[in-house]
């Protein structure tokens, strides 16, 4: 399941809901991305997205994860709007019978999301605001899952 929302999420509640009534899950991995301000330059972060395409891309990424690993369940929640340092941005939960699939699928989902889901971050602080630049290391992390293909494919 995927969701794009302005409101916060509760990691415990989301994980509990994902496992509800299931006894075939032996491993649940969750990743939470939060707003970072390591040097006092970020007071706010605003996330813009492309409604429609965002949901399509997240669903495509989730489907690819299910095609590659034996997952029993998964969840991707991404927030949009204006957030503050420490706030949650993204939650990825993957559940499988065994831990390797859950760990790997969670990393794959995040690597794919970082390079293909249409979200853009704008940081504001005491010295003004700017659009966050994409990082080359995110492209190479995503490309690792598709040997022989370039990142944009």
């Amino acid at each position: 399941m995927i969701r794009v929302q302005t409101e916060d999420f509760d990691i415990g509640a989301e994980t509990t809901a994902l496992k509800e009534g299931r006894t075939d899950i032996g491993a649940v991995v969750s990743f939470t991305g939060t707003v970072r301000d390591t040097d006092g330059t970020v007071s706010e972060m605003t996330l813009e997205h492309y409604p429609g395409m965002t949901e399509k891309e997240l669903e495509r990424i989730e489907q690819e994860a299910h095609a590659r690993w034996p997952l029993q369940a998964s969840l991707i929640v991404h927030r949009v709007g204006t957030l503050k340092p420490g706030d949650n941005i993204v939650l990825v939960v993957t559940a499988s019978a065994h831990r390797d699939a859950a760990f790997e699928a969670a990393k794959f989902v995040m690597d794919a999301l970082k390079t293909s889901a249409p979200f853009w971050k704008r940081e504001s602080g005491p010295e003004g605001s700017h659009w966050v630049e994409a990082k080359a290391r995110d492209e190479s992390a995503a490309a690792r899952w598709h040997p022989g293909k370039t990142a944009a494919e």
Partner: protein
Amino acid sequence: MRLLYFAWLKEKTGVAAEDIAVPGHVSTVAELMTWLKTRGPEFAHAFERSEVIRAAIDQTHARPDAKIAGAREIAFFPPVTGG
């Protein structure tokens, strides 16, 4: 054809979305960007570094050489930075 602009492309062009008739000789995403640059100083500035700009045709990522014929919606945006 509906064109959408996101993040700094929206700021630089001053346009979020528009419906526009694209000339018939414009057949690819790259050619569309080249044509958009001719629409005025805001567009010339926004599409100056066209090599870093990404595009989507009907909400699917598209390469610069992708054909635009039949597209209902084409979006232009900087490399994504979510997560």
